[in-house]
C-alpha cells in the first residue's frame, strides 16, 4: 500500500502550494453562491402553494447549495493533466516500468487531484457560508458522521471517474470526447446544478440509478439530515457499488488498452 500513499502525499504537497489560486477560487465561489442562492430563493418566494409540498425546505436548500459551492472541485471536471502529458509524451513507458499496479497508481493520483484543492477551498468557504450566508450545521452528530462516510464515497467515486477519463487517453490521445461529456453529466446528474429533489419526480427516479448522485446529492443530503437510517446506508451502498463497478470496468479497459498502447515521442 505504501507507494500509493507516498504518491498521494507528494501530490498533495504539490497541489497545496497554490494558495493564491485557492483564495481567488474562494472569492469566485462565494460570488456564484450568492447569485445562485438569490435566484433559488426568488423561486421559493414566488409560489407559496408549491412551496408547501416541496421535498426540500428553503433553509435546507441554502445549505445544499453552499455545500455544492464548497465541494465544487470534487466533481470530475477535468482529467489528470499529468497523466495526459505522460501518455502524449511517451512518459507512460516509465509509468509501466514501476513495480506497482498502474490502476492503483492512477487512482491515488486522482484522489489527491480531487481532494487537495477542495480541502484548501472548502473549509474557509464552509466557515464563511455558515457565518454569513445561511449554511446550517448538520442537525446531529449522527448526521455529521454519516456525512463524512458519504464524503469518502464521493471522493472514491470521483477518482474512479477521473481514472476512466485517463484510461480513455489510451484510445484517443487527446481524450476530448470523454473530457467534455463527463463534466456535463457530472454537474447535471449529481444535483450540482439543481438539487435532485427538485427535478420532476420521474426524472429524479431515473437519475437516482446513475452513479453521479453519489458525488454531490448523497453527501449533501446526509449533511442536512434528510437522508437518515436505512435510507442513508442505502445511498452509501449505492456509492460503493458504483465505485466497485467503475473500478472493475476501468481495470478491464486499462488491461485492454495496454495491449495496444503505442509509446509516443522520444
Amino acid at each position, binding site marked *: 500500500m505504501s507507494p500509493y500513499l507516498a504518491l498521494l502525499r507528494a501530490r498533495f504537497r504539490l497541489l497545496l502550494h497554490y494558495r493564491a*489560486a485557492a483564495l*481567488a*477560487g474562494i*472569492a*469566485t465561489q462565494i*460570488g*456564484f453562491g*450568492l*447569485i*445562485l442562492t*438569490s*435566484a433559488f430563493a*426568488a*423561486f*421559493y*418566494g*414566488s*409560489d407559496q402553494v*408549491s412551496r408547501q409540498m*416541496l421535498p426540500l425546505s428553503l433553509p435546507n436548500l441554502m445549505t445544499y447549495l453552499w455545500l455544492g459551492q464548497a465541494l465544487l472541485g470534487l466533481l470530475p471536471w477535468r482529467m489528470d493533466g499529468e497523466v495526459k502529458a505522460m501518455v502524449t509524451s511517451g512518459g507512460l513507458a516509465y509509468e509501466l516500468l514501476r513495480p506497482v499496479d498502474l490502476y492503483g497508481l492512477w487512482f491515488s493520483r486522482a484522489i489527491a487531484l480531487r481532494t487537495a484543492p477542495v480541502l484548501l477551498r472548502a473549509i474557509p468557504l464552509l466557515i464563511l457560508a455558515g457565518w454569513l450566508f445561511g449554511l446550517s450545521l448538520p442537525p446531529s452528530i449522527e448526521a455529521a458522521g454519516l456525512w463524512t462516510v458519504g464524503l469518502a464515497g464521493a471522493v472514491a467515486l470521483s477518482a474512479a471517474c477521473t481514472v476512466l477519463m485517463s484510461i480513455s487517453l489510451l484510445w484517443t490521445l*487527446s481524450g*476530448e*470526447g470523454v*473530457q*467534455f*461529456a463527463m*463534466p*456535463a453529466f457530472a*454537474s*447535471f446528474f449529481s444535483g450540482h*446544478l*439543481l438539487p435532485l429533489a*427538485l*427535478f*420532476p419526480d420521474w*426524472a429524479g427516479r431515473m437519475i437516482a440509478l446513475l452513479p453521479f448522485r453519489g458525488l454531490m446529492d448523497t453527501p449533501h443530503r446526509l449533511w442536512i439530515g434528510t437522508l437518515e437510517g436505512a435510507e442513508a446506508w442505502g445511498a452509501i451502498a449505492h456509492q460503493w457499488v458504483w465505485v466497485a463497478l467503475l473500478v472493475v470496468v476501468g481495470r478491464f479497459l486499462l488491461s485492454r488498452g495496454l495491449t495496444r498502447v503505442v509509446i509516443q515521442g522520444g
Partner: protein
Amino acid sequence: MPPRNPARQTKPVSHSDVGAFRLYVRYVAISWRAQLQYRASFLLQCLGTGMITAGEFLVIVALFGRFKTLDGWTLPEICVFYGTVNLAWSIAEALARGFDDFGSLVKSGDFDRILLRPRSTVLQVLGREFTLRRVGRFALGVMVLTWGWTDLELGWDGARLLLVGFAVAGGVALFIGLLVLQATLAFWTVESLEVMNILTYGGVTTTQYPITIYPSRLRHFFTAVIPLACVAYFPIVAVLGHPDPLGTAVVWQCLSPTVGFLFFGLSLLVWRMGVRHYSSTGS
C-alpha cells in the same frame, strides 16, 4: 505551406495597404482554419459545451415545472431574457477569446511581439482567435429566444426586433469590455484572474432572470457598477411591454443599451493605461 514566390515579397508592404477590417477578416480566416484542423475533436468540444449549456437551461425549465411563476414572471418571458443575454455573451466570448486568455500572452512575453507590429494592440489581440467551439451557447440562445418570442406572440414588430438587436449589440460590447478589463489586469498580475468569472459567467447567470427577483444589493451592483441590467433587463422589459416593477420610464428602457457601448469605450481607455504600464516578463 510552400514558400511564396519571393519576387512578390520584394516590394515592402506598408501597413496602410491593408485596411484594419480586412486584416481582421484575414486573422479570423486563419483562426477558423486552425480550429477546423482537428474536425472530430472540434465537434466533440462543441457537443460538450452545448450539453452543459442545455443542462443549465433545463434547470430553469424544471424549476418552472415546480413553481409555475418566478415573482410574477412566466417561463416564456424568462426565455426572452435568457436568450438575449446568452446570445450577447456567446458572441462576445467568440470575438474576444484573445482577451479571455490574455494572461498566457503576458506570461510568455509574447505581448512584446504584438507591440512591435505597427498595428493597434486591440486589433491584434482580438484577431488571435475567433472561437467557434462555443457555438452551442449561441444556438441555444437563438432557439430559446425564438421560442419565448413566438409563445408570447410578439410577432414581426420592427420596433421590438430593433430593440432586441440593440440590446444584444450593447451586451456584446459590455461583455467584450469586461474581457478587456480582465486582460488588462494581467498586466499587473501576470495571471488571468478566475475572480473575473463572477462578472462574466456570474453576470450571465444573474441577468438571464429579470433583476427584480434579486435583493437590492445584487441588483444595484449589476446596474450601477457592472451595468448588465442596461443591456438585458431594461430593454427587454420594453420589448415585452411588461410594466417595470422598478418604475423606470420607457425612454430609458429603449436607450439603456447605449451604456454597454460606453462601458466598452471606458475599458479601452483602461486597456491603454495597462499597455503603458506593461513591462515584459522577459522570457
